[in-house]
C-alpha cells in the first residue's frame, strides 16, 4: 500500500465526483446544440456551473470552465493584460517572485513577445509577498495587471490576498489570483473578497481554480471572471462562455468538478482541522528525530496539509528516490524539466541559498491521509535523510573519485 503524500500535486478522485463524471459522460449531446440531446447536456453543464458558483460564492455567469489550472492562469493574466494594454496602454505586470511556473512562464512569454515590463515583488523567508514592495509596484502608475498566488504551492504559506487586492483597488489595477492550490482548502468567497476590496473593476477580478486539487478529475479547471472585468480570450471559435473560452464544453468534467468542490467546501472546516493535526504530528515527530531539519513557513499561516522543509546536506531527489522505494510518495516541491527537479526558485526567493534549494522536500497531506501514513513517514524519513546526506549534493565538487584508485595506484 502506497503512502501517498503528494496531495498538492493531485489528490485522489472522490467517489462522488467519479459517479457524477461517469453519469454525465453516458449522455450524448453537445451543450451548444439546440435539440433535446443538446439541451440535456446543457442542463448538466449549467447545473454544474451553478453549483460550482455556489461553492465559490460568485455568480454562475462568472464561472468560465477551462482545461485546468494552467490554462486558467494563462487566460487570466494574458487576457487581463491584453485588454488593459489595448485600452490604457499600460504595459507593466506585477507579480511576486515565488509564483507558480504557470505564472512565471506566462509572464516570461509576455515579456519576450508582447512588451510586458515585469515588476517582480520579493517574498520574505516564509515565501509570503512583501506588501510594501507590492504597494510600490502596483502604485507605480504603469501597472496593467497584478497577479498573486492565494497560497504558495511549494511551502503552503497563505498570501495576504485581501490586503494585496485593496492596494490594487487604490492603484486602479485589476488583480488575478491563482487559487488553484487553495480552493477547497481554505475558505474562499469570491464575493466577499471583492467586497472587501471595495471596487468592481480593480482589485480582485479573476481567480484560477482546478478540479483535481480537491478531488475532481484532472483536465478540468475554471477561471472566475468578474462581470466587470475585461479579459481578451486566448481561444477563438464558437463563442462559448461569454466568448472568453471557445470550444465544446465538457459537461461531464464540469459536473464532476462541481460535486468535488461542494464536498470539499462542505467538509473544509472539519477536514482542515484533522489534516492540520496530522501535519503537526508529522512535523513534531520529524523535528524530534532530525534536529537539523528546517521547516519552511513555520512562523506563518499555512495550508493545513502542507509540510515543506530543508534537509541540509542532502539532495531532495535522493530522499524522494529512497522514500519511493519504501512506498512513500513525496515531492521536492519544485518544477521538473524532463523529470529533473530544478533547484527550487521559491526556496531561493526565500533567501535560503542554492544548496537549500536542492535540499527541499514537500509532503502534502489530504483527504485520504491517515495516522498510519504519518507513522510510516516518521519511521522512514530519518533513515532516508541519513543515506541521502551521505550521498550529499551532486553539485558538490569532489576531488579524485572516491572509488577511483588515482594516479599511480
Amino acid at each position, binding site marked *: 500500500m502506497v503512502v501517498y503524500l503528494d496531495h498538492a500535486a493531485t489528490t485522489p478522485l472522490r467517489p462522488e465526483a467519479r459517479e457524477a463524471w461517469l453519469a454525465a459522460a453516458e449522455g450524448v449531446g453537445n451543450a451548444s446544440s439546440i435539440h433535446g440531446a443538446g439541451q440535456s447536456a446543457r442542463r448538466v453543464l449549467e447545473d454544474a456551473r451553478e453549483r460550482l458558483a455556489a461553492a465559490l460564492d460568485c455568480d454562475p455567469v462568472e464561472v468560465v470552465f477551462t482545461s485546468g489550472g494552467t490554462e486558467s492562469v494563462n487566460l487570466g493574466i494574458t487576457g487581463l493584460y491584453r485588454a488593459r494594454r489595448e485600452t490604457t496602454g499600460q504595459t507593466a505586470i506585477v507579480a511576486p517572485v515565488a509564483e507558480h511556473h504557470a505564472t512565471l512562464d506566462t509572464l516570461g512569454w509576455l515579456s519576450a513577445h508582447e512588451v510586458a515590463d515585469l515588476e517582480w515583488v520579493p517574498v520574505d523567508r516564509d515565501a509570503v509577498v512583501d506588501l510594501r514592495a507590492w504597494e510600490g509596484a502596483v502604485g507605480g502608475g504603469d501597472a496593467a495587471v497584478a497577479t498573486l498566488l492565494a497560497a504558495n504551492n511549494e511551502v503552503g504559506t497563505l498570501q495576504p490576498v485581501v490586503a494585496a487586492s485593496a492596494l490594487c483597488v487604490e492603484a486602479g489595477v485589476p488583480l488575478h489570483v491563482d487559487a488553484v492550490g487553495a480552493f477547497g482548502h481554505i475558505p474562499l468567497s469570491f464575493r466577499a473578497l471583492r467586497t472587501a476590496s471595495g471596487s468592481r473593476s480593480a482589485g480582485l477580478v479573476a481567480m484560477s481554480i482546478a478540479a483535481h486539487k480537491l478531488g475532481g478529475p484532472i483536465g478540468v479547471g475554471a477561471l472566475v471572471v468578474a462581470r466587470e472585468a475585461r479579459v481578451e480570450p486566448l481561444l477563438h471559435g464558437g463563442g462559448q462562455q461569454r466568448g472568453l473560452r471557445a470550444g465544446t464544453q465538457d459537461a461531464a468534467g464540469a459536473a464532476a468538478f462541481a460535486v468535488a468542490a461542494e464536498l470539499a467546501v462542505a467538509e473544509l472546516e472539519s477536514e482542515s482541522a484533522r489534516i492540520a493535526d496530522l501535519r503537526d504530528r508529522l512535523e513534531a515527530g520529524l523535528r524530534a528525530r532530525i534536529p537539523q531539519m528546517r521547516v519552511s513557513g513555520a512562523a506563518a499561516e499555512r495550508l493545513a496539509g502542507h509540510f515543506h522543509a530543508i534537509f541540509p546536506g542532502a539532495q531532495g*531527489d535522493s530522499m524522494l528516490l529512497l522514500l519511493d522505494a519504501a512506498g512513500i510518495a513525496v515531492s521536492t516541491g519544485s518544477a521538473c524539466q524532463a*523529470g529533473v527537479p530544478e533547484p527550487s526558485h521559491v526556496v531561493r526567493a526565500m533567501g535560503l541559498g542554492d544548496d537549500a534549494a536542492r535540499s527541499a522536500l514537500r509532503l502534502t497531506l489530504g483527504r485520504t491521509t491517515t495516522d498510519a501514513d504519518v507513522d510510516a513517514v516518521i519511521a522512514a524519513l530519518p533513515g532516508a535523510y541519513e543515506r541521502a546526506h551521505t550521498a550529499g549534493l551532486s553539485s558538490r565538487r569532489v576531488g579524485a573519485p572516491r572509488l577511483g584508485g588515482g594516479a599511480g595506484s
Partner: protein
Amino acid sequence: MRVLAAMSGGVDSAVAAARAVDAGHEVVGVHLALSRAGGTLRAGSRGCCTIEDAMDARRAADRLGIPFYVWDFSERFRDDVIEDFVAEYSAGRTPNPCMRCNERIKFAAVLEKAIDLGFDAVCTGHYAILREGDSGSLELHRASDAAKDQSYVLGVLTTDQLAHTLFPLGETPSKALVRAEAEARGLTVAHKPDSHDICFIPDGDTRGWLAERVGTAQGDIVDRSGTVVGSHEGAHAFTVGQRRGLALGVPAADGKPRFVLEVRPVSNTVVVGPKDALAIAEIAGERFTWAGAAPTSDDFACHVQIRAHADPVPARAVLAGGLVTVTPETPLDGVAPGQTAVLYDGTRVLGQFTIDRTVSAVPVDA
C-alpha cells in the same frame, strides 16, 4: 543485488537493464541529464540527452516494470567533461571526452551516489566483459563482438569501480542480436540509431564548437625546420595526424601531402611534415591507473591501443620514476598528447595512461 541501471534512451542500455532484471536483481533505471540546454527532439543519430532520449529511457523502464528517475549531473558534466575538453584542446592536446565522462561521471559521481543510496552496483550497456581471473581478482576484457568492443573507453576504471559494475552485453556475439532481443522484448528503441560523435557537440562540428569557446587567433604553420609555410585561425582547430584544412600556399619540396605533426598552443603554432614523420616510436605518461591487479613486473610485454578504434600494437611497457613508458614494436601513427593509451594483455585490459610525451621515429634531419 540492488542495481542502478544507467539508461541513456538507447537500445544497448535498455537491453542491459532488461538482462539485469532477468538475472534477478532489484533494478532501478536512472537517466543522466548531462545538459540542461538539450533539445526537445533528437535529430538523426547525433547528440543525446534530449527530452526524447529521456522519454525513450522512461518507456523502456516502463516496459521492464522498474522504477525510473532522472538524475541531474549537468553541472558536474560541464565542469569535469566539457570544460576539461576545452582546456585540453586549448593546451594543444587531444582529449577523449567519453573516457573523461566514464572516469569522472558515470563510474565515479554516479556510482558513488548509487552506493551511498544503497545500491550495490551500476549496470550499463557498454560492450566489455568483467570476469574473475585465475588469481580470483576481477579482470576487464574485450567484448565478444570486436566491432562493438568498448573496453578502450572503460580502461580508466579501477578495481573498486569494476567491483561495483555490471556489463550485461559484453558476451553477446553481435549488436544485431541485441537489437533483435530488444525487439522481442517489445522495447521501442530496438531500431533507434546508434549515437555517434561527441554528445555535447550535436552537429558534429567540433572545430566550429571549439572556435566559439576558444576564439580565433591567427598563427603560423611551420615545417619541421621552422620555416613558415602557411597560417591558421587558431591552433586548437588542429589535431595531430590531420591532413585536411591546412590550406598551405607553399608546396612541400617533395610535392607530397603534409600532415599536422605537432600543435604548440603557447606560440599558437602548428607544425606540419610528411606522413612518415607522424610515426611515433615511444610514448610516456605519468597519469596512469590499473584496471584490476597492478602488473607484478615493472617491465612487461603488452599491446598498446591509442584510440577507441585503433588496432592494438605489440609493445613493451616500463614503469620507472612514476612514469610509464611504452615502446611499440612498430611505430604508432597520429599520436597526440592528451590521448589515452590503453594497455592490454591479450583480451585483458591492464590499465591506461594519458599520453604526456611522444618521441618521433623519424629524426628531424632524416
